[in-house]
């Protein structure tokens, strides 16, 4: 019964979405307040109904109702409860339901919390949001119904792919989708603004909290995925430039550009059509991601079970939404007059550079990701584009961005005093170089690019801190006065400092763990000793252990440093009999200085198995935890900026924001 309730709720949500697609926008055009306000009820109604459907599917998973096809093929009665719940969004159909749930969540949130947004803009935005949910609800109802029954039901399920049975991955899709799909509301705002033909500072301010929320969630989602890959796949890497990783990264890059260009629109009434375009493109890239993952267009390790018919339906939705919005853009954008004039040396110009680099970087990743498809279509040749391309193109592009990031916040709006700024950062540059030389002395060797990157990361960290210190006049005035200033500084400003510093911190992790990684792959028998990065690791042997739905071979490694036993690692090789697949559970000794990472694999040969020899992969990854630390800073920085007073208090009337030298930057 429960699955039928879920299915029925989906159909009702589809009906509500249809109503919301039409009534509010017609109301906005005719000035009928009641029609416009109808979006409030329908958007909340959609959330409740899709929520019921999601709850129904989750219940089927929790109770292991194998009469539902989706449960039978993705769950198993012996699976731990957490993964039964996570199984809800582990399949194509279930994850699509989560996608739509988040879509309606953002719609309802705008209805509930966007009390300062004018009625007509809100009505149009929610109507556009309903267009998207109409498209995806119909997609689900017609091609990917998660509630399809099977008769006779199987005795037990097929189990979820064991690689996916992991806490990091249980949480990864919800956050990723909150980010991905969160940009839908920004897209809806942009399309609504194009329909209204009006974009101004107030618009940018209304959109900002939603952009920030989506951006934070996307950051968290990507980091969780990366963290999962790091400790679960057993290769010790955290980013592989796989197409599916790339499609989640591109909306992040463009979303970051949007976050910055929207500031210019908000403070200076400039970059208007550009901000709108970024808002459209960011969500377009999210849609592209959904399409790539579910259509089998590209080779990837992550893709869902694919079906060309589904791919065609999503492509049709893409054509409507992206094509439609860009056509609207081409028609309406030229009519938007641009505001605030600025000089080549100004904060506007700085943010423009930020945008240009981020957009170029996004274009590079997009090109690299789709190049195999283009080439195959044109010449028939099949290739794959891997990490070397992205490392060679993307990284050198991002380094200038880091250089400018250090200076940018020092620049004032409209016209900045270059000499003054250079004077302020003079000592920062000097200190960075000194710190860099010290590190170079301590850590000789490694690629030149890595050293250059370290220098830039130090520069970014110091410059960011210097800018923050300058704002609160630390050391210039008594400490209590500086503290008072820090308290009075807008939270958005603290948020910027934290996020920029976070990137610098994460950079240390990126660089350290890729350029100075030490790796050994060895055959070991009980009693073997491996020396790596100052550690002495003794392999004690392997024993067979049993988990709830798997068997595991658990290795025991005693780790010594300077003759002292500092820890014991237990890497595992798990076999899941029902899913007929194996996973690697690496064991990690984590410290801020670096991770000692161990994973074991099947014995090297039959003879080796008899003598107890195993393949042991052991790595030392310096600074890798700085990645997670820095990423946390990024997310907290976003949260701090989101809590800024100006976003909570009603936005001012549609008047031009008056720029001032003490204007907060984010």
């Amino acid at each position, binding site marked *: 019964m429960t699955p039928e309730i879920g299915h029925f709720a989906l159909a009702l949500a589809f009906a509500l979405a249809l109503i919301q697609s039409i009534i509010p926008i017609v109301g906005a055009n005719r000035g009928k307040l009641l029609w416009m306000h109808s979006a409030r009820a329908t958007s909340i109604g959609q959330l409740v109904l899709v929520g019921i459907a999601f709850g129904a599917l989750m219940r089927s998973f929790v109770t292991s109702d194998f009469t539902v096809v989706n449960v039978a093929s993705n769950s198993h009665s012996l699976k731990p409860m957490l993964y039964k719940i996570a199984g809800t969004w582990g399949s194509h159909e279930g994850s699509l339901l989560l996608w739509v749930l988040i879509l309606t969540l953002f719609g309802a949130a705008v209805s509930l919390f966007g009390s300062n947004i004018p009625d007509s803009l809100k009505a149009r935005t929610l109507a556009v949001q309903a267009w998207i949910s109409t498209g995806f609800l119909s997609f689900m109802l017609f091609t990917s119904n998660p509630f399809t029954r099977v008769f006779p039901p199987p005795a037990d399920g097929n189990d979820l792919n064991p690689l996916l049975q992991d806490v990091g991955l249980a949480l990864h899709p919800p956050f990723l989708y909150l980010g991905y799909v969160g940009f839908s509301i920004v897209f809806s705002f942009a399309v609504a603004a194009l329909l209204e033909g009006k974009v101004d500072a107030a618009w940018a301010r209304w959109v900002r909290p939603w952009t920030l929320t989506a951006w934070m969630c996307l950051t968290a989602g990507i980091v969780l995925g990366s963290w999962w890959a790091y400790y679960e796949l057993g290769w010790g890497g955290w980013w592989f430039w796989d197409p599916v990783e790339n499609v989640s990264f591109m909306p992040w890059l463009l979303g970051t550009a949007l976050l910055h260009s929207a500031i210019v629109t908000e403070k200076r009434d400039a970059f208007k*059509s550009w901000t709108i*375009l970024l808002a*459209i*493109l960011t969500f*377009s890239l999210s849609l592209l991601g959904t*399409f790539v993952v579910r*259509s*089998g*267009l*590209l*080779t990837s390790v992550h893709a869902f079970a694919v079906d*060309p018919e589904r*791919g*065609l339906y999503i*492509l049709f939705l*893409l*054509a409507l939404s*992206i*094509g439609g919005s*860009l*056509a609207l*853009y*081409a*028609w309406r*954008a*030229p009519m*938007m007059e*641009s505001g605030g004039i600025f000089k080549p040396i100004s904060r506007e110009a700085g943010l423009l550079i930020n945008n240009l680099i981020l957009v170029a970087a996004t274009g590079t990743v997009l090109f690299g990701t*789709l190049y*195999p*498809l*283009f080439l*195959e*279509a044109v010449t028939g040749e*099949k*290739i*794959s584009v891997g990490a070397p391309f992205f490392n060679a193109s993307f990284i050198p592009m991002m380094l200038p961005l880091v250089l400018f990031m250090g200076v940018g916040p020092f620049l004032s709006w409209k016209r900045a005093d270059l000499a003054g700024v250079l004077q302020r950062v003079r000592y920062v540059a000097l200190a960075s170089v000194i710190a860099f030389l010290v590190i170079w002395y301590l850590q000789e060797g490694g690629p030149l690019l890595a050293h250059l990157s370290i220098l830039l990361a130090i520069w970014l960290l110091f410059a960011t801190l210097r800018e923050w210190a300058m704002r609160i006049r630390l050391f210039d005035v008594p400490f209590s006065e500086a503290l008072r200033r820090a308290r009075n500084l807008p939270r958005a400003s603290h948020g910027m400092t934290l996020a920029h510093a976070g990137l610098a911190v994460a950079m240390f992790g990126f660089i350290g763990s890729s350029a100075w990684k030490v790796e050994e792959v060895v055959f070991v028998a009980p009693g073997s000793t491996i020396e790596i990065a100052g550690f002495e690791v003794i392999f004690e042997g392997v024993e067979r252990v049993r988990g709830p739905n798997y068997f595991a071979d658990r290795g025991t490694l005693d780790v010594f440093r300077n003759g002292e036993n500092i820890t014991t690692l237990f890497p595992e090789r798990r076999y899941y009999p029902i899913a007929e697949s194996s996973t690697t559970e690496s064991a990690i000794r984590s410290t801020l200085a670096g991770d000692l990472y161990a994973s074991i694999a099947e014995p*090297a*040969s*039959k*003879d080796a198995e008899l003598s107890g020899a195993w393949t042991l992969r052991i790595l030392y990854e310096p600074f890798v935890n700085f990645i997670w630390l820095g990423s946390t800073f990024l997310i907290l920085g976003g949260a701090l900026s989101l809590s800024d007073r100006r976003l909570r208090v009603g936005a001012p009337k549609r008047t031009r924001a008056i720029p001032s030298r003490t204007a907060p930057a984010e």
Partner: protein
Amino acid sequence: MNRTLAFLPLLIAVVFGGFFLWGLNPDRDPNEVPSVLISQPAPEFGLEPIVGVDTPGLSRSDLVGTETAVVVNVFASWCVPCRAEHAVLTSLAERDGIRLFGINYKDKPDDAARWLAELGNPYARIGSDVSGRVGIEWGISGVPETFIVGTDGTVLYRYVGPVVGEVAVGKFREALVQAGALPREDL
């Protein structure tokens, strides 16, 4: 803002859309990355026989001037799928009269000899590639891999992974027919 410039994003999106539409062709399998060796001459190599096995060694000259296309199979005793594939290859060599050559990849001669003694030896020639150097020349990504080489020493076909199961065997036999090593009616 320039009117034509505003159309640019739409234009790019339409071009992308066209490629995507093409890419959805159900016959297309993006996971199938063919070898760069296809239609190229087989690489230059010369391998000694496995120590302790009577079968002669294998070098490039054995692949040129053959009567019909031959099969070159890369295998190892430590590779479990090779064991499954062995029966298929044996049947190809013994029932269909295909000339089968082997490259014994990164294997200890003793292990390889024992493996062949246990399962039987369908190979006409086997080169022992202990260092894995020749495997690199052939561009293999793992074992087993199986190539079909034409009478003039040109690589015609590459199969990655074990030729096991109806679909894989069907595919491989089809390739053999096209190479002229099997008559069409044997398909």
